[in-house]
């Protein structure tokens, strides 16, 4: 068997472990979860270390001393470990949040705020345009919190809520489909003709282990709720 098949097998085994949580909390799912957290933690640690090494440490070594500052800021994050040094960790947080917001603010105002206003300047000549204009106006007005819920605003508020809810309804339907597609994507890999038989064997093994555990009361069986 080549590496690709071994890979499919490993993926299949660990996915089955993850899916076994659906039966109830059990040792197999706990084991999977902890292994997963371990390798994910390791992956995050190693890739970010690589990133820092490439983008900060080599630059410093190459004479770009400004980047020492960024390393110091990163080390300051460790201040969170002890509560009396908590204040030290605040400055790097301010920097990250500040720069992120700065970037978001400047593009947001053009593309999201003005761009969307511009697109709503539609003539009231068709039902669709009318729905678009009324929907946008009432949905935006729904979030005006200084207006009191009385008089004409009450109707605007209700209309806005209907439009927002229909928007979320659409998301809802789309999300359901998306989640199914995720399972299908995983199942396609697990039931790949090259490994399908092994997957069945693994399902059998997990079933045997769990049934043994449940019948001997070594694993707590959660009654159906």
């Amino acid at each position, binding site marked *: 068997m080549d590496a690709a098949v071994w890979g499919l097998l490993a993926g299949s085994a660990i996915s089955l472990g993850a899916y076994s949580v659906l039966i109830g909390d059990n040792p197999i799912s706990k084991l999977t979860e902890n292994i997963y957290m371990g390798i994910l933690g390791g992956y995050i640690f190693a890739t970010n270390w690589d990133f820092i090494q490439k983008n900060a440490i080599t630059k410093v070594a190459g004479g770009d001393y400004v980047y020492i500052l960024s390393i110091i800021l990163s080390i300051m994050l460790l201040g969170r470990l002890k509560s009396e040094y908590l204040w030290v960790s605040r400055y790097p947080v301010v920097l990250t949040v500040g720069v992120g917001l700065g970037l978001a603010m400047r593009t947001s105002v053009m593309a999201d705020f003005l761009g969307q206003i511009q697109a709503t300047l539609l003539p009231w000549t068709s039902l669709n345009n009318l729905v678009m204009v009324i929907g946008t106006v009432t949905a935006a007005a729904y979030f005006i919190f200084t207006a009191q819920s009385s008089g004409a605003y009450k109707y605007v508020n209700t209309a806005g809520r209907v439009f927002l809810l229909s928007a979320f309804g659409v998301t809802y339907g789309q999300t359901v489909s998306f989640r199914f597609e995720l399972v299908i994507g995983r*199942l396609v890999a697990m*039931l790949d003709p090259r490994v399908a038989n092994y997957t069945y064997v693994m399902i059998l093994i997990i079933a045997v282990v769990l049934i043994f555990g449940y019948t001997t009361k070594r694993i707590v069986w959660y009654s159906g709720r």
Partner: protein
Amino acid sequence: MSIINKLLNIDQRIIYAALFIALAYPILSPVMLPMDIQGYSQQAFDFSDSIPEGSIVIFEGGLGAATYPQGGPGMVVQIYHMLTKGVKIVFFSIGTEQNFWTVRAIETALGKLPPGTPAENGVDWVHLGYVAGGEAGVGSLVNDIRATITSDYYGTPIDDIPLLEGVNDASSFAAVLWWGGSEGSMPYGIRQISVPFGIPITGMSTTNEVPNFSPYISAGQLQGIFGGVRGSAEYEYLMRLPGPALGQAMATNFGGLLWMILVILGNVFYFIQRTRGEE
């Protein structure tokens, strides 16, 4: 306890098992049904088809392990579509994991090309690899490619790549193709490339992201979109290039149907309960 109550309180594991079977069965024995092409997919296809031969497009590959099964087949078709039309492609990815899957999509597409199609690395396409920094990274890349990265994914220095001769910012591109997966990054392409440089953009997102982008489509800021596995399947169909997406789209049938039946049943039982005054 009445029958309705008992039915409503069946063990959830029965529902889980039913869903598992509903999703796995069609993968093992596919059932093919005709399907309509969604308006957004048709729009995205027509736009892609209208990109003139010989022009260069910039292509963001943002699919990860979870989303590649849905979007990957469509991405392969898009690459195939562009290369067979003689459009040159500049790839990049805004994530390390996504970068890996982009390479896989490129290789799969190259394998599908009819013999004789020009598809030389560096001449007909180039993969710039991972570009860090999220939205800021995208902005920096399209404003000055050479200041942002020094070599492509395969380690070739940018100045040795024939395709990128004279290309240093987004004004050289005819279109943006943004295969953004589930990360909701398509607005990066709109805000950083499409709007400032006036280049049309289309692409793909996972199904659940489509409604978030619909305002951009109706505003004309986005030229249609392929949504999830259904979008991939439709692209395969429109290009007459059969692939794995069609079977997967068909597999959503039974799961979706099960879900709809359960919603109807649940609500019917609920109303019966309510009219009887039970809780």
